[in-house]
């Protein structure tokens, strides 16, 4: 009787696990096969005839190549550098300097950033970028992303900095280091894992972001991959399936690679803010 129950429980567990695995995997299977299929349609099927020509055609589209290998990298990389640098400095100050009401400040920051977000925030952000004369520039996109991602990045970083024992810095102070020197030589090397996490998180967010560049950019020469993907459409407005899927795959690979890297290096889990 006990054995039977054990078998039934195990079977139910594996059945449920298989069901959930299918739920998450099945919508993506098409995306894995279609890029290699010379005659891909919307149905899932093994590539027949198998081909790599779709990727060749994607690389022949200079506009899309530039979007992926230049503009997306400039925008995601630019925002990544800015966010990581500013968040590290700010989090260090919030953790180590005697700023009055700094906890209120951290709360207020999170509060405000969760209110001024998404489409609703895009109206004033568009007007701001417009009045700065930065419409249709990559800098405008970088600034808007940086502003939006900074509060959460500071929150994550502060958690990292707070977890570092203060004794290293205290002994550095005793030996007469300046504030900047101590930050550079002692604190920075210790918070590097936190900076890596913030950098990857920012990069992936901007890399995948559609709405901000869609609204702020006009000329094809500035478009990132998330918008340029719509160039693989026919005149009639339907996607050329072989090319959109091939481009999608190329565009997704960096995100998956970064996920694997973070998972291998630090373990993919939650940092800061949301722990217990």
């Amino acid at each position, binding site marked *: 009787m006990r054995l039977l129950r054990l078998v039934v429980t195990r079977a139910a567990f594996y059945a449920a696990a298989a069901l959930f695995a299918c*739920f998450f995997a099945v919508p993506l299977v098409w995306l894995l096969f279609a890029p290699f299929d010379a005659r891909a349609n919307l149905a899932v099927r093994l590539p027949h005839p198998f081909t790599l020509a779709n990727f060749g055609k994607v690389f022949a589209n200079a506009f899309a190549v530039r979007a992926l290998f230049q503009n997306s990298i400039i925008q995601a990389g630019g925002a990544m550098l800015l966010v990581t640098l500013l968040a590290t400095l700010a989090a260090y100050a919030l953790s180590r300097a005697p700023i009055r009401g700094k906890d209120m400040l951290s709360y207020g920051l999170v509060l405000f950033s969760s209110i001024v977000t998404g489409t609703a925030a895009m109206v004033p952000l568009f007007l701001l970028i417009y009045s700065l004369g930065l419409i249709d520039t990559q800098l405008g996109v970088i600034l808007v992303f940086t502003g939006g991602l900074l509060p959460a990045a500071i929150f994550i970083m502060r958690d990292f900095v707070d977890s570092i024992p203060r004794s290293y810095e205290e002994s550095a102070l005793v030996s007469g280091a300046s504030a900047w020197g101590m930050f550079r030589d002692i604190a920075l090397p210790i918070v590097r894992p936190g900076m890596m996490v913030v950098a990857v998180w920012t990069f992936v967010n901007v890399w995948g972001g559609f709405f901000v560049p869609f609204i702020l950019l006009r000329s094809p020469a500035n478009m990132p991959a998330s918008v340029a993907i719509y160039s693989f459409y026919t005149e009639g407005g339907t996607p050329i399936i072989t090319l959109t899927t091939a481009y999608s795959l190329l565009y997704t690979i960096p995100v998956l690679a970064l996920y694997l890297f973070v998972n291998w290096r630090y373990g993919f889990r939650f940092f800061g803010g949301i722990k217990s």
Partner: protein
Amino acid sequence: MPERRTILPLRTGLLFLAPAAAFVVAFIVLPFFWVAVVSFTNRSLTGLGALHPHFVGLTNYLRLFNPSTFLQPGQFGSSLLITAQFVLFSALIGQAALGLLLAWLFYRRESWVKETVQTLAIVAWIIPDVVVAFAWSAFLDYGQGTLNHIVTAFGFHRVDWLLGVPVLSIILFNTWRGTAFSMLLFSSALGSIPPSHLETAEVTGANAWQKLRDIILPLIRTHIVTDLILITLWTFNTFTPFLITGGGPAFRTEVVSILTYRIAFKYFNFGSGSAIGMIMMLINLAFALIYLSLLRRREGTR
């Protein structure tokens, strides 16, 4: 708190903080007030409204809440109702319940099965918006889509997902897209429960459901609240359904973020768009305040 030596002098600290503060003021605080101001004007991108925007008082708000059109398709009230359904079913029920179920299913199990399912959920969560939108457009296609292949394989009739049941489609999509967050949050919450709590229950012969209801859920209550509020905020503001349905057919999937986009950036009617944006931000504010007060109450009791 023990007396601690100051590591960073106040002045240097403020210097470190200044660049980030400038960004936050310019791109978060200023826009909040700016959108309020613009919502009382007839500002537009082109034409007279661009050069000389007028103060129009509550006109934009009155138009949004005009009782004779409020609930018509493509209007604010109708959009709010669609959004409420979308948030309730895809976030509060879909993502949170499925996330909890997944976390609980793999609780105290380390195996390749757990790794596989969790990785698949995470992949669905992290790949770019436009890519998942393509994948789902194909998945839901009436004639060739995978979902209809599955449905007919089980002997049912094809369903016209995107035209017949569009709201259900974006609910399914958003559940699929965002469950990983709740799953990860609940997994880490479950991991923090001391094993002794459950061992006591096992000795007294509690079954799995009783353990979940009487021990696990009360212990992770604050995590559940955190999760519900965050995913509500995100789902309320998400624009991704636009990439699958464009808000259609006939405005049936036009959640408020898509409505804002249409008014502000397709018609370039910034005044009206700002009024909707303002109301969205006030709703966000309500969610965020509830969250912060719960968070603080929790810290008070500790």
